[in-house]
């Protein structure tokens, strides 16, 4: 069995996701409470998705960075972790540009269906908080 999962974020929502990513990065460096504000965001490329973001830290330090697909995946994973939304550790994770934003795709293959199925027979591990899986698989399209 195959599971395909897609989370869609609009550009506005994407900004919030990147803010959360930056805030979590700040927290990991021991400077908790520093809000990050995006002033501008543009798509550098759509395939692979790459963004150029400019903004300000809470203490007015300006920042300009390029957000790669791996970072975007990390932003979605951090969002899911923060919301308590379980995601499969073993899923193949990709991001793709969609009409009004970005889609985060997760694909899990070979989910076993056994007549004696039990939790022990199905190897389907979920991502604990603080872990990311940035494997990519290009060319995925949902119907």
């Amino acid at each position, binding site marked *: 069995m195959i599971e395909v999962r897609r989370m869609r*974020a609009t550009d506005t929502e994407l900004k919030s996701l990147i803010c959360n990513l930056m805030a979590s990065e700040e927290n990991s460096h021991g400077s908790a409470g520093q809000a990050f504000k995006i002033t501008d965001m543009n798509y550098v490329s759509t395939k692979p998705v790459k963004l150029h973001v400019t903004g300000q830290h809470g203490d007015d330090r300006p920042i300009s960075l390029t957000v790669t697909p791996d970072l975007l995946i990390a932003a979605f994973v951090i969002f899911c972790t923060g919301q308590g939304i379980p995601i499969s550790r073993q899923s193949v994770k990709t991001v793709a540009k969609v009409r009004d934003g970005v889609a985060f795709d997760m694909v899990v293959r070979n989910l076993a269906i056994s007549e004696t199925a039990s939790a022990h027979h199905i190897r389907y591990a979920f991502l604990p908080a603080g872990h990311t899986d940035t494997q990519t698989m290009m060319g995925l399209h949902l119907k």
Partner: protein
Amino acid sequence: MFEVRRMRATDEELQGLVGRLMSSGFGGLGDEASKFTIFDMNYASESPVKLKVSGQFANGKQYTDHIAADQIIAAFILFCEEGRIPICRESEKTIVRITGGVAFDMVIRNLSIDPAKQTPEQSECTFVHEGCTENTA
């Protein structure tokens, strides 16, 4: 933000899922149904998906009946529960016929990205916990 999730099962896999559902005591037959073997499975209708299943329980009792979309959803939920695959309680769940099998779709709308709501307590999306099932779409 919204999430669309699709689990695809081939006809053979669907047979396994329905077999598990029947073996689990679906329809109040649990006491006599330690194992259910499907002899034949056909699509009675494709939209909405409806199956005609015939098989036999371990005690020899024969069973032929229609399995509606809600029951197929229950079969998927049972599979997820046994595999400890978390599914969102509040998602809209549907079954659609696809080439070679069926797809179990779950749609969650209005996932909030407001940083102020970034705590599980305030999340609008609750998941089925271990040991709990939701057998309705």
